[in-house]
């Protein structure tokens, strides 16, 4: 059972856990990305996530297929939220279950690393001082925003 989606509603970590827990699996690994109040020394007040939704979902599906192939994890759910998120809100959740712990843990890490590299989702950070900016983790020239 593998599933991924890009959603606008709130992510409910408990329901993801319930979705993957089963008597066949002895280990569940859950990763949550949440909106942090600071980035690069600037005070953040909110983050606006946007996506190329159809490609983001296709790319997530490819990542889950790779994860299954690499780690043998077939119980794997990913949700990425887009829209305006407040501090502490969950932006991404990855839940993996496996009979043994190592594949569940390895798989979760793989999925979050790949999401950060290649899923077409962007964030515009809103700062406490009223300014905002696109986040560019690649370190390429920042495009300054309004």
């Amino acid at each position, binding site marked *: 059972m593998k599933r991924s989606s890009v959603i606008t509603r709130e992510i409910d970590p408990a329901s993801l856990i319930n979705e993957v827990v089963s008597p066949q699996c002895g280990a569940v690994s859950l990763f949550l*990305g949440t909106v942090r109040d600071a980035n690069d020394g600037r005070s953040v007040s909110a983050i606006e*996530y*946007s*996506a*190329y939704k*159809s*490609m*983001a979902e*296709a*790319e997530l599906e490819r990542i889950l297929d790779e994860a299954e192939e690499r780690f043998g994890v077939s119980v794997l759910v990913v949700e*990425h939220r887009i829209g305006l998120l407040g501090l502490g809100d969950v*932006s*991404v959740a990855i839940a993996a279950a496996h009979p043994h712990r190592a594949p569940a843990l390895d798989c979760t890490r793989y999925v*979050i690393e790949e*999401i*950060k*590299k*290649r*899923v*077409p*989702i*962007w*964030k*515009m950070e809103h700062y406490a001082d009223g300014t905002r900016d*696109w*986040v*560019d*983790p*690649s370190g*390429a*020239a920042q*495009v300054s*925003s309004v």
Partner: protein
Amino acid sequence: MSTVTVQLFASYAELLGAPTVELPLAPGSTVKDLLSRIRSLPGASSLPNAPRVAINRSFAASEQIVEASDEIALIPPVAGG
């Protein structure tokens, strides 16, 4: 000569002032050809040297041929998670 629509997102849509641009496409054009056409548009001079391009929802190599029926998008540096 046909026309293709290129989707723009996030900072790139802001740079070019629109969520899509229409471009003429000569038969046999590659991703690279398309990019040099895009670079001549107003606002596009601030694009990075080799922005990532997606064809039909997958990242494309610069030598890939672009078809008029393709879904084409320019992908700014991603920041998901």
